[in-house]
């Protein structure tokens, strides 16, 4: 699964994307796995209310299923326009 990071999430984690082998069933499971890896992930995922998530390029919630998903992206609230 490809995991992408944007804006300050990307800066905190230090990379724009990575490919992971994961058995996570939901986005929340994936976040827990990432948090357990290293401090930089713990720092990026400290407050989920400050984050948004997209699954296969569609905005969704943290309880979304990851079954059959190819791409997950984490980022702060968007500031377009």
């Amino acid at each position, binding site marked *: 699964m490809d995991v*992408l990071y*944007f*804006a*300050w999430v990307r800066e905190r984690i230090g990379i724009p994307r990575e490919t992971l082998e994961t058995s996570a069933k939901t986005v929340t499971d994936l976040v827990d796995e990432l948090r357990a890896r290293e401090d930089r992930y713990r720092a990026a995922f400290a407050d989920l209310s400050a984050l948004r998530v*997209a699954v296969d*390029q*569609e*905005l969704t919630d943290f309880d979304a299923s990851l079954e059959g998903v190819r791409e997950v*992206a984490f*980022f*702060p*609230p*968007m*500031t*377009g*326009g």
Partner: protein
Amino acid sequence: MIIRVQPEPFDLGSETDAFADAQKSMGAVVTFTGIVRDLPGEGLDRMEIEHYPGMTEKALEKIAAQAMERWNLGDILIIHRYGNLKADDRIMMVATSSRHRADAFAAAEFLMDYLKSRAPFWKKEFTTSGAEWVAAKDEDEAALDRW
């Protein structure tokens, strides 16, 4: 629907002309242009706009399709830049056309409200003393409730 996500500047006049010229039997064209605001005090060195290639185009198409469904529109144009911009540069524009102006005005406002908080763009402001990500405002999220 014409949707362009690009680093290059765009010419507001010729884009508006081309959009208006392409309309048939439309009585109204409304445009909105977003411009990089300078910062008070030390001033803005530059603004960097990051986006999510792939999702950005999909999100804009979805927002535009919703507007087409909801109002009686001729067409929609959305241009949004990314990369490095300076104060007073044009960031983005939307244009809408309709037979009567009310639809074109309402759709342009709807597009802007959704583009603000549902299109995956992030702005970072650079000044001489550092750089900061622009935070989303609560009122931008609240603005969606009226639709």
